[in-house]
């Protein structure tokens, strides 16, 4: 049966497509004015990976802060602030002003850099 492989791959494609449909409950977080590409560059320049594990950033394997994978799915920032774009930008720009006891330093991040970084974390 020459087209058995074709049929099998067709069946597999259908199954994968159905899996895709089932995942449509994804949230719609996005950062107005934020650019994920520039955010990636900023994450590298600011050496965020020294403290955080960040997917897609070379060498970002830090264990001082929590891993930032799947940040879009996270419900809270720092265990207390709702994970919405504006709060995340605020946190990235100056964490100690939000939560004085945090070990996360103020890295003097500009508003636009903060938006870009947030966009990358939500990508």
């Amino acid at each position, binding site marked *: 049966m020459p087209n058995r492989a074709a049929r099998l791959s067709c069946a597999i494609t259908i199954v994968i497509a*159905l899996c895709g449909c089932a995942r449509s409950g994804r949230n719609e977080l996005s950062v107005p004015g934020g650019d994920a590409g520039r955010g990636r560059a900023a994450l590298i320049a600011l050496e965020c990976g020294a403290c955080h594990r960040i997917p897609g950033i070379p060498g970002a394997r830090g*264990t001082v802060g929590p*891993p930032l994978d*799947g940040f879009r799915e996270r419900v809270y920032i720092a*265990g207390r602030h709702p994970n919405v774009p504006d709060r995340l930008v605020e946190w990235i720009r100056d964490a100690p002003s939000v939560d004085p*006891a*945090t*070990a*996360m330093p103020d890295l003097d991040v500009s508003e636009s850099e903060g938006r870009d970084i947030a966009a990358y974390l939500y990508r």
Partner: protein
Amino acid sequence: MAPNRGHTPGFLLRHKLLFGVLGACAILLLGMLVGVAILLSGAFNTAATEQHSAFTHFLLDAGLRYSVNANADDIEAPALTDAALIDRGRSCFRAHCVHCHGAPALARQPHGLGMMPIPNDLTESARDWPPAWLYYVTAKGVRMTGMPAWEFRLSDTDLWATVAFLKQLPSLSRAELVELAPLPPQTSCRSDDAATARRAESYDEDERGEIVLRQYACHACHQIEGVVGPDSSVGPALVDWPTRRYIAGTLPNTPDNLVRWIIDPAAVSPGTLMPDLGVSDAHAREMADFLFAQE
């Protein structure tokens, strides 16, 4: 070699074992694919308004009985006729059971009405089941139903008191039954953290950490390596724990500090959304040991 009788069996016959196995595999695979297709198409409705087929219900019910029979086998029931014990059990029933199970002459609370499977009225099992079975189901709960395990909440005495009361339940009058209305759990037969502080020790050492984490619902908010759960993103993922430097972004990550944090999160980080779950020192240590044993 056998002499050639002028007849060679066909390829299929000569390899009938091979083809038999291949055929069985194909049928199994097809069945699995059909199952996956039903699941992904949404044809299996998870609504609690849908009922099990009679056959599914029979299977689950029989499974429960055989499981309880086998697992409760070596549980020794104490004497259950003491009036004070029965009275204590009545408080436990009113504080923790009657909301979902109700009783004859007493309607259950709203959350006990819409559940699937429905929490059964307990008079029949109370009459028919041996005390050890009732104790086992109360202490360990029943998975895939709403029945929780109570052994990490109630002392052994309270668990047996509940069984003692259940044994009396079928003989109560209507007047006595209507007096079983729910009591606030804080005022009577309350969750006894001191009495259950070392409950994990009744489990094998290598499964304690995982059981304790689940019995305090940690996996409802955290993804935890080694604990199967809803993969929640409410709290941070507890993976590669030994490599983490800080707890809650403020406290150096040592086993002792982790125990401190679990027992009273707000004392470490005021304003945190991580709740105080009434975890005992012994159970917090089991959790910390489990997390620090991650690769």
